[in-house]
């Protein structure tokens, strides 16, 4: 059966006009139609926050749960029912503050979850407090004199937790978003997709440099596995390795040709360069978009199922009555 985005649509979203969540929702519905999993085989599980309202607008199975616990709840759903395609939706507060512990452990275990992190660097639903991704010095209602703490960089957490998949897209960039969502689905294991998303009310312009197509041309680089890392309005810039670092070069200057440019390897098990790419930021570097890391590894849910099958084939008891008889027993006559 051919599916369309309509098959995944439900209800009328209640986000503020212009909120990045609207864009993302549309891309997710399109991506799901292209992936082609029937809506009844999809579970969309969120925590609490603006973005966590998302499952209400999906014509799939869904849970809008409690603050921070979406990854843990999604873990149970996937392990208990591995046939489901499970999508976990969290914001930066839900996923990285109150839910930080579950975020790292889901990555460490490599559970086959598509973990969407809608990052607007602010608490929107509680009306404007700094989040764990707000930059140092950020002024908000709960930090009128600026924050005195450093933010998490989601890729660093993901890689630090031994995550095997990390991708990034801008909410307003539908093709870029759809592409990474499809890659996340295709990847077996936990797949973190950071969506750079604007909060028009409490943190407008936070991703300004890459929010428009023109901005992305200037300030972002689309990474593609096997392709040289070239960017710029006229594809005039590239990335090369420079000692322990990477640096931006201009093609044609100082004898640099396309051949000198680094070729992206998302499948490289060593995440050192992928980390450097993921942490690039302006004005000196372009923001990396696309699939930054995508490495195959055994998934937790498969391993659980395999172990059960393995033990089943080795042990001699397979039902409750047989279990009882594995004990020392005695008979009173």
């Amino acid at each position: 059966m051919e599916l369309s985005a309509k098959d995944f649509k439900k209800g009328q979203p209640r986000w503020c006009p212009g909120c990045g969540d609207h864009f993302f929702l549309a891309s997710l519905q399109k991506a799901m139609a292209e992936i082609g999993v029937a809506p009844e085989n999809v579970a969309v599980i969120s925590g609490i926050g603006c973005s966590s309202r998302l499952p209400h607008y999906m014509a799939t199975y869904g849970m809008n749960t409690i603050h921070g616990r979406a990854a843990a709840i999604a873990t149970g759903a996937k392990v208990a029912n591995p046939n489901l395609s499970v999508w976990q939706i969290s914001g930066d507060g839900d996923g990285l503050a109150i839910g930080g512990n579950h975020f790292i452990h889901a990555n460490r275990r490599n559970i086959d979850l598509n973990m969407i992190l809608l990052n607007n660097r602010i608490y929107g639903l509680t009306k404007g407090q700094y989040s764990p991704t707000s930059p140092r010095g950020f002024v908000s209602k709960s930090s009128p004199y600026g924050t005195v703490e450093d933010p998490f960089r989601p890729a660093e957490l993901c890689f630090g937790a031994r995550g095997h998949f990390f991708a990034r897209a801008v909410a307003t960039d539908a093709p870029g978003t759809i592409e990474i969502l499809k890659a996340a689905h295709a990847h077996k294991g936990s797949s973190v997709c950071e969506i750079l998303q604007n909060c028009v009310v409490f943190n407008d312009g936070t991703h300004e440099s890459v929010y428009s197509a023109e901005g992305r041309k200037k300030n972002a680089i689309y990474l593609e596995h096997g392709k040289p890392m070239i960017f710029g309005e006229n594809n005039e810039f590239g990335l090369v390795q420079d000692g322990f670092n990477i640096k931006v070069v201009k093609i044609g200057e100082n004898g640099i040709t396309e051949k000198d440019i680094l070729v992206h390897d998302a499948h490289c098990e060593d995440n050192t360069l992928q980390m450097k790419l993921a942490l690039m930021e302006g004005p000196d570097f372009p923001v990396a978009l696309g699939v930054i890391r995508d490495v195959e590894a055994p998934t937790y849910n498969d391993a659980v199922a395999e172990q059960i099958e393995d033990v089943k084939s080795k042990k001699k008891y397979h039902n409750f009555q047989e279990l009882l008889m594995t004990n020392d027993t005695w008979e009173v006559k």
Partner: protein
Amino acid sequence: MAKVEDLDQVVVRFSGDSGDGMQLAGNIFSTISATVGNDICTFPDYPADIRAPQGSLTGVSGFQVHIGANKVFTPGDKCDVLVAMNPAALKTQYKFCKPTACIIIDTDSFKEADLQKANFATMDAIAEMGIKNDVIAAPITQMVKDCLADSGMDPKAIMKCRNMFALGLVCWLFNRDTNIAANMLKEKFAKKPGVAESNIKVIQAGYDYGHNTHSSVSHTYTVETKSAKKGVYMDINGNKATAYGLIAAAEKAGLKLYLGSYPITPATDVLHELSKHKSLGVTTVQCEDEIAGCASALGASFAGALACTSTSGPGICLKSEAMNLAVIMELPLVVLDVQRGGPATGLPTKSEQTDLLQCLFGRNGESPMPVIAATSPTDCFDAAYMACKIALEHMTPVVLMTDAYVANGSGAFKLPNLADFPAINPPYVPESLKGTWTPYMRNAEGSRYWAIPGREGFTHILGGLEKDSKTGAISTDPENHDLMTRLRAEKIEKIQVPDVVVEGDKDDAELLIVGFGGTYGHLHAAMDEMKAAGKKVALAHFKYINPLPKNTAEVMKKYKKVVVAEQNMGQFAGWLRMKVDNFAPYQFNEVKGQPFMVADLVKSFNQIYSE
């Protein structure tokens, strides 16, 4: 030759350093006794320290077993035989001895250094403590060394067999067949036949030592079987019985069993037990924290499993938000609380009933939840089975309460036949409702239907926000919220639970004893003792706490005097007062982390009786 005396019941307490293997010796002796048809009730008393210094007073580990020709209800207040493997054990455990108790000590471990570790001032511990009991003072360590001199074992391994010598001696004292122990050890050490052989040799040496020297006792004893019910039995502790109950319920319901858990004393053995049984398809996930244990179980429940999470009191604090989510989502979930001493970290290895109000009420909003409290180690099986049945059939989280005492204590468990257990029929959404179904439609019992992901035509969203009773959409409508609150409460109130049974002088008791959960054995023993002294007394013991049995008010009102006895400051008495008008019972409250002493109960109840 020592005379043989027949006893109706006897209590033996094994004690020693936590590395001395007292739990194993005690377990084997219990099983030998059970195998010949005696009833047994055991209580392991662990030290709280991770590893206290060897020989120290805080490192003493005890194991008490009560064996009876007829039914025994408790591990016994005080013991008839105390095995004390070192001075620290003698010093800390002597208080559990009856005046007539026989004490077995290893003289080789009563040397100056050992005595100092246990803060003795003199070289004669027995005299220093003023002990007048019969004492079998045996050079156990030396005899074990001699016995295993040719075994090729290293000295450390040889020392680990001292417990088996003590066991052999106790077997002689009670005329027990050591062959049963030998067979158990052969099975336990099937992969290490050398270890089994050495242990068996030492047991026999202990037995022979008693037999040859007649030690210093005038009697040996037998406990004959008088009233055991026919059947096949095994020895089971409460945690294992709980795990078995969950497995049985999942099989009966035809569902996958999922446990999300985080290690915590004294509940961890449930995780251990379930983790073994992958051949039954059991899935256990040791989560990153207590919250994830409960949250992942809820996810598994949504996805169609029989989902459980296991913990103790501090874990319930952490799980409460996810438990509450299960209440509003109306998803089945079994939450096991193996109670320990609180508040906070409290007394992790000790037993209390202090979580009752937390389980009933420890959540925000109106959050009704069924609560079941297991009454004995073997009853954990039935309680766990019924918790699953109620959760699945009524689409609700259920709290299953046990405690450290029933969790670690054991009894003879008659092997159940799953075919005899009631069917479990979750309210799966009927196919006929396709197209008109909404998530909060209810059946005749008031339960929501269960639509498991994967079913076409029933996609839906559940969540922590209040939903419209008809459409299932988010709603803040005041009337709807009031209605949903009532529907959730009514659903729980409608759950059918068996009437509370009144035992003893149910028609003309002057005093009704009331309790709940793990104190059943002690309260029953107290009643028996009072009845034997000619008192008119009855016992109503509760397993179903929420909803309470229908006849609760009637029973509470029927007797002149009622005493509610519990291991907390009056939580169950308070719950009964909420539910029964003008109910003003006497209370017996004790929060010591230890099981009740039957003698203390009887003393207090007699006072109330004669007031």
